[in-house]
């Protein structure tokens, strides 16, 4: 059924953003050229990914092995594009372009320093993100995972002040510390145990005689080691990383970084353990409950936050656990929902972050309690915010509805009523922390006129939207979330390819 | 504390070493592995040396032949070790004073002119009649003897190291008897450092020559064509001699350099 096609496309897709780095450095004085390079690289990346899409949709895989063929017991660097990787790559590369445009608006609007460095590391982190998406074995995955951790550190700490220092430290201690302490030994243990790290074919550990304790230890090592997935109690880096400029938070902490975390955990479940082994050992429930607890707790914490970005951060933690819980349920529909949720949540959450940033650029406000009445000044932004919030909460007709539907369906299928309730409670809580914001913005009166910053560009009288380059992307992604409800077929097909290629017939 | 630690360490070391003694071959055993090889195996290299040295090199003194030919690669680096010592002592100890340079150069000039001169600042030269005279007699003899040892390394005990030390001693003798300045007049500092390098260069250069005859490094047999000798054996013999000359040059100069620097704390003035 599956053919693997040898092609260099995945490599080019990864490298296209890396290749932009020297150009960005070269044009560091000409800001226009520099930004044009960023956007062109994004377009190039997207077109490479799109070029691979039809091949994947036909049920094929694309493979590229560098440095050896793995026949001599060593681990080569392998790129393999399958459905799961494609979903993630598609999301990341589509969203990079609006983020680039947005960051131009944002960075210029705030006259940030060191913009060249910002664009350079942004490009590098996209390189690493696609590398993770296309990684064909665990070693490759890990390599790109670490590149991502490091290349985002300068972005998180962009402001270079005491707060950024704290945030950056927490970021690294969590991400680097856990990956060195847990993932490396777990990865090599898997290698010793099974002799391979390759994701192709059946799951790596499927044939090994893991005991319950070993299996549990490995699963926990991976789940917490890939701490970009922000499972509690290793979640605290995510809120503290919100010191980053908003485009960084938007792309990296709603899309790339955290999704890399859950992506890795999905890989762990599907390709390292395999659903059968996890179910057989009975360790899936442990992961389920960790995720479920994270889910509810994070939503509750989000309720108490006043800083808009921190609230979004905790919301992200909760939504990530949706994905992890979905895959850990080990039912077909839950897995489908979980993969779809990668895409849906990405579009929704990036919209929300864009809005937060746009509000900050236009008015300098960060706290939810300050947003009273702003909806009338910034209707586009807040409309987009409402759409994004609805999508993340899971209301129709937004994309998030579909994925959450499948997730709940999967939970029911697995007869896990408690987990089903966790989903529902969390969905209610999502609504509870998002809609007060929308309510405040549109229906509460504005406190005083003169407290508003005057540096946002004025489009229509009375409107004080953020710069056009900020508003356009958020409108685009908001519309994207709606469109995903009506046209989810690409992602749906890809997700079912994952499940039927990797799960149904293992 | 330190002594206690040292005692413990030394006792442990000694115990380990003595523990193995019982397995050792008897003292003077002609059939111990080093002397004749492992029983049942091939003969040890020393037997090969004893039997074939004369055939291969026409050098009766096996030690010389092994030193400079069979294991000449070792000896090359041994010479380099000596050079290193000379250079290192210079680098560590030598006090270079730029202001004084002209002045000291002047005094060297003066020293050069004098015959076992009494140019030292202490001016005690006239009390050294006995020493000076003895020195005048002994130094040429010592140098001659040094050259003899070098040249006679083939048929009798001797060779570049031994001869070089004797030659070096002759210069030290001059320094002791007539002052360092006098000795430096005969072997100036830049000269002896250069000669030390030249010695190693001669050694390695002779070895390198065989590369041009498409033979391996230090294969003196390749030089037979160049030296117009009858066979490779004599070429080896000559090669060994050339190498010994290089060794002697380095050893002589470095011995003197060590003395000169150490006896004057690197100032090369005054002296003992």
């Amino acid at each position, binding site marked *: 059924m599956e053919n693997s096609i040898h092609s260099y496309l995945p490599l080019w897709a990864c490298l296209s953003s890396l290749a932009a780095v020297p150009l960005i450095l070269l044009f560091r004085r000409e800001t226009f050229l520099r930004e044009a390079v960023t956007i062109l690289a994004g377009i190039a990346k997207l077109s490479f990914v799109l070029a691979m899409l039809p091949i994947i949709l036909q049920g094929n895989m694309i493979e590229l092995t560098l440095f050896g063929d793995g026949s001599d017991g060593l681990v080569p660097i392998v790129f393999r594009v399958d459905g799961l990787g494609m979903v993630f790559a598609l999301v990341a590369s589509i969203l990079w372009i609006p983020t680039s445009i947005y960051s131009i608006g944002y960075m210029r609007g705030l006259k940030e320093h060191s913009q060249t460095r910002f664009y350079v590391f942004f490009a590098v982190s996209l390189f690493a993100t696609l590398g993770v998406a296309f990684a064909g074995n665990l070693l490759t995955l890990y*390599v790109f995972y670490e590149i991502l951790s490091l290349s985002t550190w300068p972005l998180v700490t962009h402001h270079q002040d005491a707060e950024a*220092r704290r945030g950056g430290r927490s970021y690294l201690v969590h991400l*680097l510390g856990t990956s060195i302490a847990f993932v490396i030994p777990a990865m090599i243990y898997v290698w010793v145990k099974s002799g391979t790290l390759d994701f192709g074919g059946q799951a790596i550990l499927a044939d090994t005689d893991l005991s319950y304790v070993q299996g549990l230890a490995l699963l926990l090592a991976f789940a917490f080691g890939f701490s970009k997935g922000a499972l509690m109690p290793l979640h605290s880096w995510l809120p503290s990383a919100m010191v980053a400029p908003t485009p960084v938070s938007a792309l990296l902490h709603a899309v790339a970084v955290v999704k890399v975390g859950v992506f890795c955990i999905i890989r762990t479940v599907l390709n390292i353990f395999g659903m059968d082994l996890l179910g057989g050992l009975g360790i899936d429930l442990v992961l389920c409950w960790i995720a479920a607890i994270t889910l509810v707790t994070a939503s509750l914490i989000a309720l108490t936050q006043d800083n808009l970005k921190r609230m979004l951060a905790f919301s992200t933690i909760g939504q990530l656990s949706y994905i992890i819980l979905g895959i850990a349920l080990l039912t077909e529909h839950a897995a489908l929902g979980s993969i779809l949720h990668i895409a849906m949540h990405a579009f929704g959450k990036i919209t929300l972050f864009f809005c937060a940033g746009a509000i900050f650029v236009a008015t300098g406000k960060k706290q939810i309690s300050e947003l009273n009445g702003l909806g009338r000044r910034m209707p586009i932004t807040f409309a987009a915010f409402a759409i994004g919030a609805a999508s993340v909460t899971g209301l129709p007709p937004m994309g998030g509805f579909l994925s959450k539907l499948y997730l709940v369906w999967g939970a029911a299928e697995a007869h896990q009523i408690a987990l089903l309730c966790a989903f529902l409670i969390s969905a209610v809580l999502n609504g509870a922390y998002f809609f007060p914001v929308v309510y405040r913005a549109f229906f509460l009166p504005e406190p005083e006129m003169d407290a508003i910053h005057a540096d946002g560009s004025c489009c229509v009288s009375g409107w004080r939207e953020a710069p056009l380059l900020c508003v356009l992307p958020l409108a685009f992604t908001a519309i994207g979330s709606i469109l995903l409800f009506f046209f989810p077929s690409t992602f749906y097909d890809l997700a079912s390819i994952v499940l039927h290629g990797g799960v149904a017939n293992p | 504390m330190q002594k206690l630690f040292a005692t413990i360490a030394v006792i442990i070391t000694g115990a380990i070493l003595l523990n193995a003694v019982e397995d050792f*071959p008897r003292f003077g055993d002609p059939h111990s*592995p080093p002397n004749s090889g492992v029983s049942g195996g091939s003969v040890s290299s020393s037997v090969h040396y004893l039997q074939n040295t004369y055939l291969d090199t026409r050098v009766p003194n096996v030690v010389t032949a092994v030193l400079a030919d*069979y294991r000449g690669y070792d000896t090359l*680096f041994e010479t380099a070790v000596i050079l290193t010592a000379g250079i290192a002592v210079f680098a560590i100890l030598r006090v270079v004073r730029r202001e004084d340079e002209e002045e000291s150069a002047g005094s060297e000039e003066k020293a050069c002119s004098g015959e076992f001169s009494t140019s030292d600042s202490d001016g005690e030269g006239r009390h050294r009649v006995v020493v000076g005279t003895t020195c005048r007699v002994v130094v040429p003899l010592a140098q001659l003897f040094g050259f003899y040892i070098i040249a006679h390394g083939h048929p009798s005990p001797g060779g570049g190291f031994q001869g070089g030390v004797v030659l070096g001693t002759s210069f030290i003798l001059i320094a002791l008897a007539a002052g360092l300045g006098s000795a430096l007049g005969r072997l100036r500092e830049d000269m002896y450092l250069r000669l030390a390098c030249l010695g190693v*260069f001669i050694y390695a250069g002779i070895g390198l020559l065989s590369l041009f005859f498409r033979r*391996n490094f230090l294969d003196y047999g390749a030089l037979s064509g160049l030296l117009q000798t009858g066979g490779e054996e004599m070429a080896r013999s000559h090669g060994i001699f050339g190498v010994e000359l290089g060794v002697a040059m380095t050893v002589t100069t470095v011995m003197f350099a060590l003395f000169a620097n150490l006896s004057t704390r690197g100032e090369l003035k005054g002296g003992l």
Partner: protein
Amino acid sequence: MSEHLPVIVVLAPLFGAVIVGFFGSRDRRLCFPIALTALALSFICSIGVVHHVATVGAWDYFVGGWESPHGVGIQLRADGVNSLLLLAIAVVALLALVYSIRQDGEKDAEKSPFFYVLFLLLCVGLFGITITGDAFNVYVLIEITALTSYGLVAMGSSRRSRVAAFQYLVIGTVGASFYLIGVGYLYLAVGSLNMADIRAILAANPEIANSRIVGTALVFILLGVWTKMSLFPLHGWLPNAYSYCPSGSANLMAPLVTKVSVYVMIRILFSVFGLGVITENPGWSELVVLIAVGSIVAGSVMALTQREIKKMLCCLIVAEVGYMVGGTWLGDAGRWGLTGSMYHILADAMMTSCLFLAAGVFAKQFGATRLEHLSGLFRRSPWVAGAFTLGGLAMIGVPPMCGFFSKFYLIRGAIESGHWLYIVALLGSSLVNAILFFRIFEIAYFGEVPESSEPFEPSEGEGATPRRYAVWRTAPLLIAAALTLLLGIFNRPVIDLIRGTVVENTGIVSMEE
């Protein structure tokens, strides 16, 4: 001439040293070009050797043409392990040489020709140790390396450098003498000095191989090389010696001298005693791994307490040595630990070189010797800071830097052989490295640029034009950083070559296991 490459690698710096010594004192401007030519020749030849080994196989060269019978002459042997090390030595030495280009007005300019002579002789020693196939020849070359090191350390500007050099001398001589005792015992037991010959005799005569003489020989050879490589608890000399020597020579010694000693240990185990000694004496290898763990822990803890950049790096060397010794003695059946150790020799040479070059640049360009002085470095000199960052990341073991891949194989070996403590130490030390380096990165990245942000003017009259030489110092640093990255990305060919040699040789070993 191409059939003589193995010996030319060693001879080029020797001739270079001699020629510098001869002409250098007359015209000091000649020293640098001559030294550069010599090392470049070595570099080219070592590429040739690597190419030959990779395409044809192990390369034996018999000095003096004494090929038969075995063990009469001195044999040079290049295989998958040491040919790469030759290349690494050549690269690191070239970088250190370019870095150490002397300035005309420096205060000890009269000695600068002799600095180059010692530098080149040190390279001779390192190349020679690496390529030789004779147990006694190793001793002679160890002594060349040691004597030149003492001289180079003592050339430091601080009073402390002399004391450090003296301590180094005493300990180094004791270490080398232990090695000599070990070789003597070995000679007493088998009557040969040629490594391949000894190996054959030991393999053919198990009763000799199991005798107490050979056991004692192994113990003393190991004690000797451990002293030389500063394995805990024999590490006392290293931090002082390398932190107080002039940075030009520290760049050469710190990356290479300990690494070459580790190589000697591997070579002795591999080609003389056979890897059987590790697997047949599990108790002893357990002990050695424990010592290695101790070294890792001690090195990391000491590094945490240091506020001086160079001293901190020196302490890290102790920990890195622990990695390699432990990896060698893991004794796993697949020889992954050994593979990892061998790769780590190369990787560590590159990254230590990068870090020491960076420390040198910090000191010369910014006058920064302590961590606090690096404040605002990323703003003052992004390139230098970036290169240092790459080196630090490699030390932490972050992919795709080379430090990661060695740990990858080391841990595999440790898991297969069940040395969990070693894994904990290895990962713990990675985390400590992460703390250490990110502490520096934070200072450098967040810290304010100091008031006197002008290029640092060397105080001791080191010349009025430091700018002119800045590029000579930064270029090697950047190259070293790039190589650290490239060695990581293209680790496969390297690992393949090492693996080929290991597998080939373990085939011989496995017969007696």
